[in-house]
């Protein structure tokens, strides 16, 4: 099942995808059907009682590491993001004036489904609640070699669109075998600029869950953004960027100033 969190008719609602429409699931609107273009899309994540942990991978595709002139890392290169950087599908991301190189990063986002501590690879999929698409924008003008990638590059307001759907892990595992069997693509104004495949991750989803849960307990709703493949290009104000992952969704974002 594909889950969404939307704003409509003055309130926030949980919904699921049904025959190309949104089906509201909770009282007082349970059963109500809406077109995909008549709602405001929020990040497809239920609120959590404490700060959500958002882990993001750098250089996790061999080709992208090469593109950025880095040798592949020997352990995951991870940074943390604040929840306030997340925005939903079909939203506007701000491009600061005067920057020269702002690029999207299409990433498979893993949403943790149950408390994970010292999880072994073999059991790691039991701890995944679902998958969604994240676009982890970076502004390379602001890169500094201090806790790189630094927050001014990676933790900016509006710079992490996520959604539209949270797809149940079981659906992906049943249909594709695993999340390592999905093609990724980004288009800018309709033109394909990035295409890759999750099989090319250096550290796959089970390896990442084992690695992180060895020292940090992950809670339901925590996120792991698994990195992006080759093919990032500068985008400008007005550009429509669509980051899509097979079976998971197409996440649309527009740059604004």
């Amino acid at each position: 099942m594909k889950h969404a969190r939307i704003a409509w008719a003055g309130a926030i609602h949980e919904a699921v995808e049904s025959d190309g429409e949104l089906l509201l699931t909770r009282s007082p609107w349970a059963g109500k059907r809406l077109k995909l273009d008549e709602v405001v899309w929020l990040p497809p994540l239920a609120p959590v009682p404490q700060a959500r942990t958002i882990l993001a991978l750098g250089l996790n595709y061999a080709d992208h590491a090469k593109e950025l002139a880095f040798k592949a890392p020997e352990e995951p290169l991870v940074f943390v993001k604040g929840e306030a950087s997340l925005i939903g599908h079909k939203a506007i991301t701000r491009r600061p004036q005067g920057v020269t190189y702002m690029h999207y990063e299409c990433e498979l986002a893993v949403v943790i489904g149950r408390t994970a501590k010292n999880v072994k690879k073999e059991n790691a999929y039991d701890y995944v609640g679902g998958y969604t698409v994240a676009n982890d924008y970076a502004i390379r003008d602001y890169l500094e070699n201090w806790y790189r990638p630094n927050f001014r590059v990676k933790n900016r307001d509006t710079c992490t669109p996520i959604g539209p759907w949270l797809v149940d892990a079981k659906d992906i595992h049943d249909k594709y075998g695993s999340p390592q069997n999905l093609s990724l693509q980004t288009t800018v104004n309709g033109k394909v600029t990035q295409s890759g495949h999750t099989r090319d991750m250096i550290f796959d989803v089970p390896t990442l869950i084992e690695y992180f849960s060895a020292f940090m307990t992950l809670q339901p709703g925590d996120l792991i953004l698994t990195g992006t493949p080759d093919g990032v290009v500068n985008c400008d104000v007005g550009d429509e960027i669509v980051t899509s992952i097979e079976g998971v969704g197409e996440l649309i974002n527009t740059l604004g100033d």
Partner: protein
Amino acid sequence: MSKMNPHPSLNSDARYWPQGTVYGALLNFQQEWNLRAPQMSEAPHKGAPKAPVLFIKTANTFTASGDSIAIPSAVADVDIGANLAWVFGADAKPVACVLVNDVSIPHESYYRPPVKFKCVDGFMGIGSNARDIAQVKTDSVVLTVKVNGKEVQRVNYTDTVRKSHTLLSDISEFMTFQEGDVLLLGSDCLPDGKRPRAKVGDMVEISAEGFDTLVNTFVGGAA
């Protein structure tokens, strides 16, 4: 107990607990900056940092004052990072101050994000009382750090690189603090560039005038 509670996110009758994301500032004390300055132009940094250097303490690190903190078995001791922190209210304005111990596995390099050093389960001691910011002169607070009752460090916020409002202003250029978010204003090093250390069995106290002392005992056993 004061009846004045202008900020609903801070229940003055209850023990303080972070409601949002906890950010921290690196290299915000002049002493550590000066010690590292000669190498800042060299690889891998190739230049002194321009924007504030930040990190996040994830929610799995939160440990109440009075509770113990487990040191991973592979590590001999951990850094004590005594911090004064700001708690944010609505409209990205700081409304309260709290004491925090930003515990880290010692790491020399500030090149890559410090997740495996700073986001270990339990690695952030949190003071039990958040004080109204109007009652605290942030940029002149002095913290005293004691290990097993013996003073090992004094941290004076007159010695920061960025005074608190400058730090906030420079961070606000690219991100907005949400209600309940926290900003650690920086921890100082010792004259040798290291931080005070704690090992299994140590009791660490961080105190400042007007705050309940933050106390955590370090224990072993974490794999």
